[in-house]
């Protein structure tokens, strides 16, 4: 090789770094039945794309366990646990990493045994693409249906059916075409849009990374070519801003920032945001990061927002677009994948973690369970491990959510057993079940109005009258009649007997009553209440009117007295204008 001048070398290095920095990330998951050869496929993908180091390969070559029949058991590259190597099975989700000049890949390798379906859901939850293995010698199994269903349920946008073990069937085109037809029919049934079928042999390495000479009839991409070029859905879900608050940063009295990861929409300084559950509205002042202010924030950026106004906002709350808020409801319906050997029981209280918000919820109804053989709906009273069902929930507090199909982040939650702390299930929200969601979808006019505090003026408008203090001395029965008479006339009135109020509390009760805008009929005993300057009290507590009946020379007859008082209170009423 010719020596390279230092500056050329530097330029080469810079473009190498640029190239690696600008790669994007494809997260994929693999699923298949026991012995479909998933681990072998992944081992082959890693090996043939040169992602395996020599010492790792050497340790596999020298391993005590080799069940492949070939010189290298590729499955041993991924089976990380002792029990797996000894039993030749894959126990748990393993994450693998490799990159090609085009993309970086994270593979969630998930086992196919029936009792470990929860791991498939785990791997699928973050995946952009699912590779479902089909053993060509055995055809589509109930496991294949289950895996396809979970992939569609968890909203994986792209599915690849890798028709494996073509080597055992002499690479016959008919075999592939039949299985492809069956799989495409299944995908249609499941509503999976982007599906590709590829004939491979993981053991022989055909069509995994390198093209298979032995299947000249196949003209499509190899598995790796497909992974490198399949279009990726942009992260942003839609225009609706969703910013769940993870952490409130208050390093000093001058800074109050809300840290979180954008879960929907694009946020810019000046964006109007609505805080839930407080329903207060504000605008974004700035998007703060360690690297300086950002002009915009979108999925899945982790940023800190400061707002124009001091509003009520803490961890577990969410900032959303005022014109496009999420559903707000305690009652919702979700598709549940149940993980635990303890069944889901109706009426039992579970902890849920929805995004960064924790709450308690109980399942109130199982609408149906999905029969994994037929994918048909059937009735159920409880859910067992690996069951998938549509379940109605009632939470103790309102949740702010979108349907899972619209937003993976705000539409998903996990269920936790409050006693064992185990993660017992996962749920994808479909819809809310409560009528209260309706007014929240109204326009911003409603929102603007709801931010107005309720004033005394508002209350008086509703009551239809001003507040007043009516003093009645030494005539307790008259006080009671007056309360009823004023109430009957449509006044908001409350009778208070001063003798019944503990010493020192009268003033605060009067203050409260006035702030509600009431007419207070206060009965007192002249002996004990002597020396109180009622006019001063009424003025201090800001009652708009004071009627001291002792100064009115009222008739002795209670009935006549009531009629006399009613003739005095006309000015309290507000005009209708």
């Amino acid at each position: 090789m010719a020596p390279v001048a230092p500056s050329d070398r530097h330029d080469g290095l810079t473009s190498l770094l640029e190239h690696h920095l600008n790669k994007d990330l494809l997260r994929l998951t693999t699923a298949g039945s026991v012995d479909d050869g998933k681990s072998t496929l992944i081992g082959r993908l890693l090996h043939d794309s040169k992602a395996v180091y020599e010492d790792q390969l050497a340790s596999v070559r020298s391993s005590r366990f080799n069940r492949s029949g070939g010189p290298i058991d590729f499955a041993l590259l991924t089976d990380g646990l002792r029990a797996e190597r000894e039993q030749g099975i894959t126990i748990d989700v393993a994450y693998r990493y490799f990159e090609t000049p085009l993309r970086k890949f994270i593979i969630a390798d998930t086992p196919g045994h029936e009792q470990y379906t929860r791991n498939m859901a785990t791997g699928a939850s973050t995946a952009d693409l699912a590779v479902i293995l089909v053993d060509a010698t055995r055809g589509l199994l109930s496991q294949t249906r289950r895996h396809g269903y979970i992939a569609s349920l968890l909203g994986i946008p792209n599915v690849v059916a890798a028709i494996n073990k073509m080597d055992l069937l002499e690479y016959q085109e008919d075999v592939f075409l039949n299985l492809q037809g069956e799989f495409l029919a299944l995908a249609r049934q499941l509503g999976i849009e982007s599906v590709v079928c590829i004939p491979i042999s993981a053991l022989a390495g055909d069509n995994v990374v390198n093209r298979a000479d032995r299947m000249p009839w196949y003209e499509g991409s190899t598995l790796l070519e497909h992974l490198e070029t399949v279009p990726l859905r942009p992260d942003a879900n839609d225009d609706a801003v969703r910013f769940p608050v993870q952490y409130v940063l208050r390093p000093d009295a001058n800074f109050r920032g809300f840290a979180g990861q954008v879960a929907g929409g694009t946020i810019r300084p000046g964006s109007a945001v609505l805080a839930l559950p407080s329903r207060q509205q504000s605008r974004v002042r700035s998007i703060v990061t360690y690297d300086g202010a950002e002009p915009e924030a979108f999925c899945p950026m982790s940023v800190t927002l400061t707002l124009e106004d001091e509003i009520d906002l803490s961890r577990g709350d969410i900032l959303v677009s005022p014109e496009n808020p999420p559903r707000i409801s305690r009652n919702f319906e979700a598709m549940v994948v149940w993980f635990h050997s303890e069944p889901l029981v109706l009426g039992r209280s579970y902890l849920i973690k929805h995004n960064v918000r924790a709450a308690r919820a109980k399942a109130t109804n199982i609408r149906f369970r999905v029969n994994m053989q037929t994918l048909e709906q059937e009735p159920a009273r409880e859910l067992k491990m690996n069951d998938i069902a549509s379940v109605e929930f009632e939470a103790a507090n309102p949740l702010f959510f979108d349907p899972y199909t619209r937003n993976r982040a705000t539409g998903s939650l996990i269920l936790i057993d409050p006693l064992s702390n185990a993660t017992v299930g996962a749920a994808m929200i479909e819809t809310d079940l409560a009528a209260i969601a309706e007014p929240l979808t109204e326009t911003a006019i409603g929102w603007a109005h709801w931010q107005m505090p309720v004033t005394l003026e508002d209350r008086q408008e509703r009551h239809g009258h001003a507040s007043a203090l009516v003093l009645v001395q030494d005539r307790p029965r008259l006080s009671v009649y007056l309360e009823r008479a004023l109430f009957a006339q449509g006044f908001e009135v409350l009778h208070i007997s001063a003798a019944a109020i503990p010493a020192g509390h009268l003033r605060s009760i009067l203050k409260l009553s006035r702030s509600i805008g009431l007419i207070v009929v206060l009965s007192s005993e002249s002996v004990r209440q002597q020396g109180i300057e009622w006019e001063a009290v009424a003025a201090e507590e800001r009652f708009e009117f004071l009627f001291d009946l002792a100064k009115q020379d009222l008739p002795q007859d209670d009935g006549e007295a009531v009629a006399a008082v009613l003739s005095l209170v006309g000015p309290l009423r507000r005009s209708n204008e």
Partner: protein
Amino acid sequence: MTLSDEDIVNQAARRRLNQLKSLEAESIYILREAAAEFTRPVMLYSIGKDSSVMLRLAQKAFFPGKIPFPLLHIDTGYKFPEMIAFRDSYTREIGANLIVHQNREALEQGANPFVLGTQKCCGLLKTKALLDALAEGGFDAAFGGARRDEEKSRAKERIYSFRDSLGQWDPKNQRPELWNIFNSRINKGESIRVFPLSNWTELDVWLYIHTEQIPIVPLYFARERSVVLRSGSIVLIHSEDELRRGERPQLLQCRMRSLGCVPCTGAIRSQADTVPQIIEEMFSFRRSERENRVIDHDEEGSMELKKREGYF
């Protein structure tokens, strides 16, 4: 003017974060989530390149505030002097609260890998020291810089890895982890190890150190160092008493690919003395990063065994 489908797709494509920025956003989310949900979190700080990246991510997660938890260094007493010097100056510079813990009892009894073997030595000076330090501090969550691409058993670890009251990991009984929703529920005495760098690879770590200009221990950069060749490993020699009978130190242009304890971490021959050159060199590597760690190879599955007992 109306946008064509192609424009919309292009616009959307521009608004995808590149893979390193996606990883950064994910890690910051994890750090904030654990800091919010646990009563007493702590960050395991091993001084290595991964810890340095994790520390920068913590600075970013809580900016403009300070990192709201202490750092904990388990000092086996066998760390390279350059590591200790770097630890002390860097943590002071960024104003971090550093706790250093040693298993003094074992060290006073002369624990070392030559006599005990690496398994037992790690058990005492790392695992036991760590579990003691976590118990003493009452820490209910500990951040670690481990990556899933490092080793096969780590590939199976959750981001929130549950540990029982003895600090043990049960790989067959892990909590399912879906989306980015983490189950932080534990009973008293139990804890969670949190791994914000789970999805990072060795290359990602170096690319990030490069783009973020993160300071790292000078041992990662190649220069001429005094070494001996000992059973296939290049062993750095700091003083004469580290020499065994018949050994003669020689000068060799070399660097460390990963940092551990002096007796158990070998150097590699290298000319790479800048981060871009280290990255360039990585593409030529045909051997894994932990290969120069003696501890991982004692026995098939040795990392898993250590992790079950409470090792990171």
